[in-house]
């Protein structure tokens, strides 16, 4: 297979970037998208050029590191898959493919397709946890958990923190990411004591990081590689309203 690629190249956050054209052929349909970029980079290195910088690590769709905006879609055209799990058989021979980084004020560009997603870590640090120091736990079966709740919590906890939701959102909102963590912990009895604090603190940090607001467009849900549902955002709104207006919790 042969492709025309238009790839965003940008030296760092302080310089302007631009789309650069590359053509590549002899691509096997069983290659992943990242393996195709590997081949392209290999060609560039052999020519003495600077290879395209991109984030990747596990290459099995779970670490959340890979992050390419491919022909106008976060992680490319395949629903429910990260870039590393996107295979070239999803494209047609001769296609022109645009490759860009995640674009959001809260995700500054490091180089080429690499962005800084530290804002997500800081949101978790603000309240995305259960305060249970090592050694304090009671027996794991002392507190039964409704199976359906556990399943729903797991659905939300499946978020890999890749940032596709932010990249896909026209407002660059992080609501799907934040709501997934708030939901995961709010659905479990272990998360109960801190549920108000958690919702308030995480939303406050999200705002401080410069993410946009949610206007219920649903692009995040459509592009999430782990199919995190919009219902989590509804749950976050409920959690936040409860905490802000119906409780005395302050952060």
């Amino acid at each position: 297979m042969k492709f025309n690629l238009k790839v965003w190249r940008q030296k760092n956050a302080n310089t302007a970037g631009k789309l650069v054209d590359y053509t590549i052929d002899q691509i096997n349909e069983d290659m992943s998208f990242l393996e195709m970029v590997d081949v392209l980079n290999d060609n560039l290195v052999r020519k003495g050029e600077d290879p395209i910088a991109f984030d990747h690590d596990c290459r099995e769709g779970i670490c959340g590191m890979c992050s390419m905006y491919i022909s106008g879609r976060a992680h490319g055209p395949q629903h429910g898959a990260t870039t590393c799990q996107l295979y070239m058989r999803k494209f047609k021979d001769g296609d022109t493919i645009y490759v860009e980084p995640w674009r959001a004020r809260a995700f500054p560009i490091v180089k080429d397709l690499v962005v800084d997603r530290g804002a997500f870590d800081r949101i978790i640090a603000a309240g995305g946890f259960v305060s249970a120091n090592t050694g304090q736990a009671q027996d794991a079966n002392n507190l039964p958990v409704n199976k359906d709740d556990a399943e729903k919590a797991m659905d939300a906890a499946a978020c890999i923190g890749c940032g596709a939701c932010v990249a896909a959102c026209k407002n660059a909102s992080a609501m799907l990411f934040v709501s997934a963590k708030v939901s995961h912990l709010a659905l479990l009895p272990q998360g109960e004591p801190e549920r108000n604090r958690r919702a308030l603190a995480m939303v406050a940090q999200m705002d401080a990081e410069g993410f946009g607001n949610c206007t219920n467009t649903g692009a995040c849900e459509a592009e999430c590689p782990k199919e995190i549902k919009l219902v989590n955002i509804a749950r976050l709104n409920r959690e936040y309203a409860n905490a802000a207006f119906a409780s005395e919790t302050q952060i």
Partner: protein
Amino acid sequence: MATLDSKIPEGPLDEKWSSYKEHAKLVNPANKRRLEVIVVGTGLAGASAAASLAELGYKVKTFCFQDSPRRAHSIAAQGGINSAKNYKNDGDSVHRLFYDTIKGGDFRAREANVYRLAEVSVNIIDQCVAQGVPFAREYGGMLDNRSFGGAQVSRTFYARGQTGQQLLLGAYQALERQIGLGNVTQYSRHEMVDVVTIDGKARGIIAKDLKTGKLERHFGHAVLLCTGGYGNVFFLSTNAMGSNVTAAWKAYKKGACFANPCYTQIHPTCIPVTGDYQSKLTLMSESLRNDGRVWVPKSAEDAKAIREGKKGPLDIKEEDRDYYLERKYPSFGNLCPRDIASRAAKEACDDGRGVGKTGLAVYLDFADAINRLGVDVVKARYGELFPMYQNITNQDPLKTPMMIYPAVHYTMGGLWVDYELMTSVQGLYALGEANFSDHGANRLGASALMQGLADGYFVIPYTIGNYLSGDIFTKPIDLNHPAFVEAENAAQERMQKLMSIKGKRTVDDFHKALGKIMWEYCGMARSAEGLTKARKMIQDLRKEFWSDVAVPGEINDFNPELDKAMRVADFLEQGELMVVDALNRNESCGGHYRVEFQDQGEAKRDDEQYAYVAAWEFTGVDAEPILNKEELKYENIKLQVRSYK
């Protein structure tokens, strides 16, 4: 020669850990605030250790090469975590988990460490549940279990096919909480490039800020390496692309012994290799062997027809199939340990009965399970795994059997540590996969997560105090101390050397060449002849690397190719040590299989001569390493032939 004192406490096996804890020295809270601990790596071991130590009051710094601590490769573990809870009432106990783990490791692990691991396994589940880890549950609200290889009880806790992810997020959230509280400083996109030792003690590290390419000096009263395994020496493995041996290797070069490097785990259920462009191999969880049946055609003719596309798996009649694991190992069947299942797959393929285009694959068939349980139950049980397989291979495992083949997955060898997890360098610790201590020559499924979290949550918080209590008067050492300057200069020179070669071959070229040598001669079957040849080949390749590698870009910039080159340079040294170790061990045990030492295809151990840990000591890159031996004394169990028949 290094002196290896394993510091195993006196007393009966089941009282050693409690007795240790009762007698270990403590550090009072005011002093903890003054003691700084560096944790390198933020996977299960690193994140759990960093969070727990910060909760105790130590000042902690954490480092990871990824853009966030949540991305460490522990996240990819699928199947589950073992614990001797006996919630199933099926006869499990701490002693049984201990025994299964020792036996699974082919009697090459340290008794006292493994017993402690089994003991604290019950606390791990409690801790994780308290953090909100959404383990699978039954309708009554209680935790569910499943069975895993090498055990006859159900003791594996799981969160769909994403157990590692959920456990890591639990530890990561605990770590982030401590970061938010100001007790931990986190350095993402930072790679440790050397450990700094002063007067024989670990006193800090040199880290490379991967965004800017600049080297930094960091002081610590103690340094914890939680940097995972070295499976990527094979290039193709189930490890993440960035997983590397560099931190452990630098520690080795600074005096820490490297133990049993030849013990590598080849996992039986991975998606087969399809082409040269391939960058990694994907694991299909061992839990699939609960319901999947492994087979190849009985006749080589049928297998040939399948390879040529003239027949499909469904054309092979039941009586013409060889369910070889069930045939050879009737009592454990498809759930025999990984090393045995992998070797059996290799034998079947060597026998000309492999399937797939390359002939390097066997079937994992769910047809029986689907008939017995229905499609929905099977689908629910394996969550993400079936769609993942289908996405990669373009085949539906509900309709046609999966094709699998063994791939490098885990390394049991690692830095030698004593009972306190300290390496042979004072104040330098190794936790999780980075150390050698608990899995012997083969690790059982669902035991890696258990060990990483045991080390981080429940072992190091107790053992580090025993060391740091003697260090409370040490003030933070000036970063201009000659040891820091020297280590930084050496790392800078190495980087400059790599940049200046401007050769013709890419880093990946060399890495792939090394991987091929390792897989061919130091993989599933090893021989003295092959290993001797491999050693020479690695030495030659290393020379070529240092004269012909091409590293583009700039030194003081975000330069992933340079980072990769630095890691491959270390693999080119470490691969040779693996070969040396494999050559030294004239026996077959667990993941180490020497063709000269077998009994009709079954591994033949030599307990008389090799019941020891081989702890290698560095003497120079092109010099012979020194072999130190730690005799393994079994006081509570009897060494026996490991049979799963």
